[in-house]
């Protein structure tokens, strides 16, 4: 028996340290939950938040380092660091939203926070994947946890329906993804992203097996990011899930799925982008148009935000279609802008939902500007950002993506996207109309005040939405260097190095 080489082990564990912290925290929370009553889950929430913070610090420590571990299965670079940080922030926001929500809705705290952490782990794993199997593992870890989270409100039939629907369709789409991976393995003889990249560069493009595999992957990812026509589950699931989980799905799941999508398609299948670009072009146009058009007629805010999330996936797909380094960094920046804005919007929905006996109907938002001026103002900023009004984050994201797409020559697609933005203004502004321009029947209701944790979440999201928009340069640079670092890593995949 050869002696253990401790140095080598340390070497390999370091890159996945943030992942390990989250995984351990998930189990600790689960065990700690045995000693905590269901209604008193707030402590578990703080524990979760603390562990996310620790993981964040370690993830921050990995910024600027690149290398592969576990024989190429894990790829640590600026790209993975970028996504891990944004995903951890997202999870932290969701915890802040859940602190009161979980107790009030009598959600089983230990399971809830533990699954939240497992889902976060899955997302982070997708961002750090160096081969297709890890992407699949990450996707499954994330999805299985989220299936359960969606159904957490056990006594609510809508929650049950949502979980069932999400699970069935999700499992189906996972099949597609896995089959796609198998076909790609068959075509290239490897599941490692780097060698696939190399294989593609050397004239594999005409391989039908490979193309079929790619198409299957598009379906698998398309389901997770809710691209039309794989979006059917979205509104029902978003509506039925506990609202913080809806936020988690609209932002976190999308981040994880796009992390995988971007890494596989833009970075590693970049050489054959001409083969998949047309498919994504169609997907993007469909996703934007259908999402926006159906969002117009929604009367429930969660459903409206669900269709809005579909539409935003469409804008992101415009960036994917454009391909190339500029488009890649535009997609990353857009995801950041979208994350902070959407988290803020959902935090407002949560705040109203459980404090003010407001349901999720947009008509209940009537006259909100009098009952809760600050919440209404914050919601207005978030909606304006989603609609793409300058100088907020959402606008800068759109600007970045449109520039990249025009620069790649997709004038028609940008015109479609622009017209879609006008459509979207209608339904976002309609919520503002309800809050400011219509009188609520419930004026006698007390003024709405949110709990400190939620106020903090909304305040931070508001601050981020404004800062990321008004002073975008550092975030754009971060996105650009993250993407560039993954590109470089893709080409030097064989060297395993971490300083």
């Amino acid at each position, binding site marked *: 028996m050869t002696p253990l080489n401790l140095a080598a082990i340390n070497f390999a564990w370091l890159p996945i340290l943030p992942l390990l912290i989250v995984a351990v925290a998930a189990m600790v929370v689960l065990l700690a939950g045995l000693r905590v009553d269901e209604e008193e889950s707030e402590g578990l929430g703080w524990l979760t938040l603390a562990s996310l913070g620790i993981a964040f610090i370690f993830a921050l420590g990995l910024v600027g380092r690149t290398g592969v571990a576990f024989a190429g299965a894990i790829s640590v670079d600026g790209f993975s660091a970028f996504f891990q940080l944004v995903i951890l922030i997202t999870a932290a926001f969701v915890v802040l939203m859940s602190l009161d929500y979980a107790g009030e809705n009598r959600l089983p705290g230990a399971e809830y926070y533990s699954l939240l952490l497992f889902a976060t782990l899955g997302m982070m794993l997708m961002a750090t994947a160096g081969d297709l199997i890890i992407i699949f593992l990450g996707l499954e870890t994330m999805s299985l946890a989220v299936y359960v989270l969606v159904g957490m409100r056990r006594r609510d039939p809508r929650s049950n329906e949502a979980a069932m629907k999400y699970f069935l369709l999700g499992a189906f789409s996972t099949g597609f993804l896995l089959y796609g991976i198998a076909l790609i393995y068959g075509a290239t003889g490897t599941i490692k992203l780097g060698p696939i990249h190399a294989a593609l560069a050397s004239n594999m493009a005409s391989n039908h097996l490979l193309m079929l595999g790619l198409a299957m992957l598009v379906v698998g990812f398309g389901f997770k990011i809710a691209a039309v026509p794989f979006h059917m589950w979205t509104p029902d699931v978003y509506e039925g899930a506990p609202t913080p989980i809806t936020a988690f799905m609209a932002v976190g799941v999308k981040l994880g799925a796009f992390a995988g999508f971007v890494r596989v398609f833009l970075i590693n299948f970049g050489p054959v982008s001409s083969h998949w670009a047309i498919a994504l072009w169609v997907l993007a146009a469909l996703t934007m148009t259908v999402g926006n058009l159906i969002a117009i007629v929604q009367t429930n805010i969660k459903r409206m935000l669900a269709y809005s999330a579909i539409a935003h996936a469409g804008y992101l797909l415009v960036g994917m279609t454009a391909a190339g380094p500029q488009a890649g960094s535009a997609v990353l920046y857009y995801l950041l802008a979208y994350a902070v804005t959407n988290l803020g919007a959902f935090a407002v929905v949560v705040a109203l939902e459980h404090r003010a006996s407001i349901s999720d109907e947009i008509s209940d938002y009537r006259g909100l500007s009098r009952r809760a001026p600050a919440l209404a103002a914050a919601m207005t900023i978030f909606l304006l950002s989603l609609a793409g009004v300058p100088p907020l984050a959402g606008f800068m994201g759109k600007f970045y993506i449109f520039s990249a797409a025009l620069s790649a020559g997709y004038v028609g697609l940008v*015109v479609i996207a622009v017209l879609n933005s006008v459509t979207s203004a209608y339904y976002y502004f309609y919520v503002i109309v309800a809050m*400011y321009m219509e009188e609520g029947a419930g004026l006698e209701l007390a003024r709405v005040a949110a709990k400190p944790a939620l106020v903090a979440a909304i305040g931070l999201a508001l601050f981020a939405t404004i800062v990321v928009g008004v002073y975008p340069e550092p975030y754009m640079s971060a996105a650009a260097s993250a993407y560039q670092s993954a590109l470089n890593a893709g080409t030097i995949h064989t060297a395993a190095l971490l300083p």
Partner: protein
Amino acid sequence: MSGGLLTAIVFVPLLGGLFVLMQREDRAAWNSAFIFSLIPLALSFYLFAKFDLHSADFQFAEQYDWIPRFGISYHLGVDGISLLLVLLTTILISLSLLYSGGGDIEERPREFCFFMLVLETGLLGTLLSIDVFLFYVFWEIMLIPMYFLIGIWGHGRKVYAAIKFVLFTMTGSLLMLAAIIYLVLQARHAFGRLSFDLQLLYQVPLSETQARWLFAAFALAFAIKVPMWPLHTWLPDAHTEAPTAGSVILAGVMLKMGAYGFLRFAIPLFPTVAVEAVPLFLALAVIGIIYGALVAMVQPDLKRLVAYSSVSHLGFVMLGMFALDPQGVTGSIYQMLNHGVSTGGLFLLVGMLYMRRHTREISEFGGLWKSVPVYAAIFMVVMLSSAGLPGLNGFVGEFLILLGTFLRNWIAAAFAVSGVVLGALYLLWTYERVMFGPITKAVNETIRDLTGREIAVMIPVMALMLFMGLYPKPLIDRMEPSVEKMLAPVHIAEVRLEQKRIDRDRALAQGTAPARAPKPSALTVAAQ
């Protein structure tokens, strides 16, 4: 760099808006909002005084990097085209706030003042930006407060009007955004770097097709804002349902942003296409003039009448502009100022009447001359200014525009003159129906005449009308160098197109050319 004077002008209102939101008492909110609006007003008078008459360049320029990755900078500057519009904006905002505090707005005054001041920041930023991206940002920002002003404090179908306003304007402006990005990418092609600097973009070489499409995108955005017939349908709704101050700013300043956009962007960026498009724009302008006047004539609602008269007056602005000669363009800018002052004044007067009677139906009035003589006298002055009576401001602008247009296209000018006649007709007729004759409704006998505050609002308006009517020189002197500079590339384009036509005719005469002129290849539009 000049000490950030322009930055102060643009952002003091925003700071004021935030300050106003923190006030607890309504009166304190009104007072602080008014005082905050006086700061940019004073600064813009200072700007007017210090403005170098003989320079056509951007003055008081400030430039800092904003998003270096895209070559976007925070770049402000003022020239003869924007200077007077800045002054108009600061004057009208102050007057509107002064007026609105007198009882016109009773609901949520703090928010009202906040949105008015944010609107001022948006308007001034739009006028002073010489970075195209920055311009676009301000252009969109000014939309939001106006949306709230109409939607919260408006009348009748206010929500419908507000949403319609937003959707119309956004459609145009987002397409313009795509065009801006495309233009900048062409600039990168030509000069090897990304830059949103307007002065650089003026030099971008474009193919004929590219220039046409880009001009179309810019022109659409601006034509919606002006609005030019047939894109005007949002205007009557927005103007009618908006609160008085909203209508004043909407008509007085915001519509000018469209015309300003043509002068600053659409025409100088694509001079050749602009020259080619002259017949189209003259035709649309003339249709707007006559259509607006005819529709105004049959309106039963006073405010709607003023709104349609705006369509007609803005037609004059566009007519003079697309005469593309110094008189026409100078007259066009002058007419923008006139329209701001006169129509602003008319909206204020209609608002004062509405506050007393809660109706704007012309048939509800009659014989007001007897019960409210001061009001009637002031109305007379403002109405005559709008109708273009010599000695008052409206005449100077219309005269210059018609002069300029006659040189370019006498048929368009001849039709436009009929608009002047129609304008006088509907305004005088309205005046007659409202002010003269017997008092038909008992309520009108006891109607209260203007308060001191209202007279204080109207005195500066009338003073401006007289001053601009009798002594236009100081204003025109400041415009001329910049107008000449803006028209220089247009003249080059004209000469070039003329030369091409001569060449083609000559070739045809010699029988050497094919029957159909060959498609001209990559026509460069670079000026100078």
